[in-house]
Every structure is written in C-alpha cells, then in structure tokens.
C-alpha cells in the first residue's frame, strides 16, 4: 500500500500518544467498518445512481479511515502499519460503535443507519478540525467537506422514505425500531474519550447535541415521522463488546490478508 509521509503544514501532535492512540484507532475502525458495510451494496443498489452514491460514500470513509490508521500506527510507534491495524486484529480489538457494524438490511435500514452516523460524524468533524491536535485537525478539515455531502444525502432520503409511500414509511419505521437504540453510543464517551475531553483534545459531546438534535428534528418533521422518545442506548462496541455481526464482517474484510499474509497491490 501507499507509504507516503502524511505530514501536513500543521505541526506534530503534542498530545500524549498513548492517550490518543486508542481514540484514533476508534475513529479509524468506525469509518472502515461503515465503509465496508456500504461497499456491500455495490452492484445491489435500488437504482444505479444510489448504488454509485453508496460506493462514493464508502470510498470517502475508507480514505478517511486510512488517514486515521496511518496516524494511529505513527502514535503507537511499534512498527505496525496501517494494514496491520486494519486487517490483522481480532473482533474484540475493534473499537467501532455498534451502529456501524449492523447489517445493511433493506435500503431504508441502510439510510437510517447512515443518517444517525452522518449527523454525529459531520458535527464531530466540525469541532475536530479546530481542535488542538494538528494531525486530527488536518484529517477532519479534509473529511468534513465530504461528510457534509453524506449528511445531505442521507437526510434527504430519510425525508423521501418517511414522506413517500406506505411501504417506504413502513420500512423506515422498522429501521427506527431496530437501529435507534445504537445512536446513543456515539455520544456516550468511554473512559478513554472522557480522558481526552478533560484535556481538551476532544470536544465535550454535550456541545454537539443541540445541533445534532435540531437537525434530527428538522429532518423528521419534513419526513412527517414522529421522533422516538426515551430510547435505551445500547453500548459496547467502543469498548470491544460487539454484536455477532462484526465477526462475519471481519472474516470477509480480512480474508485476503489472512490467507496471503503480507499481500500488497
């Protein structure tokens, strides 16, 4: 794979690498796993344009994941590469939230999963790009432009499906009933995230919530769909306690590196 120097004009990180490493890995895993899920749609989309849209979004997220993995490898400083981190860890070592590993289901299910993620991702990147860690800020500055397109796309589709036909509405309702429980994990900090919030490297997630909530309310009002209330938040993925789905996903994702160790393009 690519072995270029990733350094930008911004100076090197000043944060304690051992604190930052697990969090950067979490960001990397999150984008990688969702990119993989979206890429499963390739060739199966409901129409060609939306098939392409999902492949495009997957590619953006994969590019973002690579930048995080390269940075994580540098922070760890143990000689592991971005490929080692992406392909050669076991399921319990992955730090992605449960939401992004959930299976695609139907199109409405994929759209709602994407909407919940995009709404968090976009608002988080907007904060990270002005954050104190130079490398994270550079990656966020790059990715936030792409995340804005993603959020617009998934928001418009939530509206089309919610305000569409009886069938599309029924499917969106089913997706809400299944997936909403995984939204809370995104903004529930782990001990590792809290430690970074305390030193100001990460934004306090409470500061993201008003804008996220306002956007959700706007989209659901346009979609004529009532917002679910008082939903239980299922936690686990960010601390390595995953659903059974991740193992199956990884067996496909890691197949080439496990079968042909050290394989490169």
């Amino acid at each position, binding site marked *: 794979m690519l072995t270029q120097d990733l350094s930008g004009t911004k100076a090197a990180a000043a944060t304690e690498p051992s604190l930052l490493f697990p969090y950067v890995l979490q960001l990397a895993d999150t984008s990688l796993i969702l990119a993989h899920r979206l890429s499963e749609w390739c060739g199966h989309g409901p129409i060609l344009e939306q098939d392409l*849209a999902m492949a495009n979004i997957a*590619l*953006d997220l994969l590019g973002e994941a*690579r930048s995080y993995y390269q940075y994580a490898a540098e922070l760890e400083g143990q000689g592991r590469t971005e490929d080692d981190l992406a392909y050669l860890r076991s399921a319990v070592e992955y730090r992605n939230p449960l939401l992004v590993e959930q299976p695609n289901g139907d199109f409405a299910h994929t759209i709602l999963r994407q909407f919940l993620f995009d709404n968090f991702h976009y608002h988080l990147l907007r904060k990270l790009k002005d954050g104190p860690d130079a490398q994270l800020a550079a990656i966020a500055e790059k990715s936030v*432009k792409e995340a804005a*397109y993603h959020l617009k796309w998934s928001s418009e589709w939530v509206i089309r499906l919610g305000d569409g036909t009886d069938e599309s509405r029924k499917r969106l309702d089913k997706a809400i009933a299944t997936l909403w429980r995984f939204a809370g994990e995104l903004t529930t900090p782990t001990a590792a995230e809290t430690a970074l919030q305390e030193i100001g490297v990460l934004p306090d997630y409470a500061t993201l919530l008003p804008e996220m909530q306002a956007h959700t309310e*706007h989209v659901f009002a346009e979609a004529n769909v009532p917002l679910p209330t008082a939903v239980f938040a299922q936690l686990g993925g960010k601390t390595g306690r995953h659903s059974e789905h991740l193992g199956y996903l990884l067996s496909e994702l890691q197949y080439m590196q496990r079968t042909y160790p050290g394989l490169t393009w």
Partner: protein
Amino acid sequence: MVIPATSAPTEARIWQLLEEVSDPEVPVLSILDLGIVRGVAVEGDKITVTITPTYSGCPAMNTIATDIRLRLLAEGYTHLTIHNQLSPAWTTDWMSQAGREKLEAYGIAPPVDGTATGHMLNLFGKDTAVRCPICKSEHTHLVSQFGSTACKAHYQCDDCLEPFDYFKCHN
C-alpha cells in the same frame, strides 16, 4: 537503468516537468491544472514535491505520486520525496482557468465557483445551474450528487438530453 541527470534541478525545471504529468482519471488535465501540487523545493540534488488529495479516498493519488516519480526519474533526478499534505484541504478554487476550459472541451462541466453544498440543512435546495458541455444549454438538472468518481456529480441536459459529468465545486 539510471539515466544521469542532464542538468542540476531547478524549481522552474521541476514545475515544467510536473506540467507533463496528467491526472489519470481526467487525462486532459495536468496535475497543475487540477491544483494538487502545493509546492516544489529543491536543495542541491534533493527534490521535494508536495501534493494534496482532492478527496480522502481518491484512488488516483497513488498513481499520481508514481507518475511524478517516474517523470522526474526519467530526467535522472533520483533524490525525490513526495509529501502528501492534507492541510490546507484542496479546493476547486485551485483549478486553473486553462484546466476549466480543457475540462469543458473534454465533455465535463467545470466547477461553478461558490456553489459548494453550503449548509447541509439546505435540503432539496435548488441545484447549481450547470452549463451543458455538449450543446452549452443552461437547461440542465442534477441526477445525483455522486457521479462516476468522487470529484464529480451526475447531470443531464434538458435540451440535448445528454447525460454528463459535472466537476463539483469543493471549497
């Protein structure tokens, strides 16, 4: 085989050679037209070229880095470093006027400045008015924000009915 350098590298000479490296996905554009070369530094016989990706996942970046290397190696310049720099993030404002004209002649509508997605709350907002690169009609509509590559959206002309790629404004 290593060809000995014909002359000591100068920044001007390197820029000249980079003009000959084309974008692998839109071959009418040089990488300078595209605005992804952010700097050239020459120190003795050491050459550093700084490039920035258009989109995070752009698969052309590896090829572009290799093509730069090959073009400079062909002149005998062997001490090369290629920096991939993320910040400041690439914007279509850096695309040259010549590049925009070449794009349209190639059948891809060039970016319309100042029309980036804007605020993401502008859902179902009015599409950017993009001129058809074939018949030059302004009567066109957006088919999808996501086109054949990360940098393009998919449009169709309402007059000549031709579908075409639009190089998205990105800033």
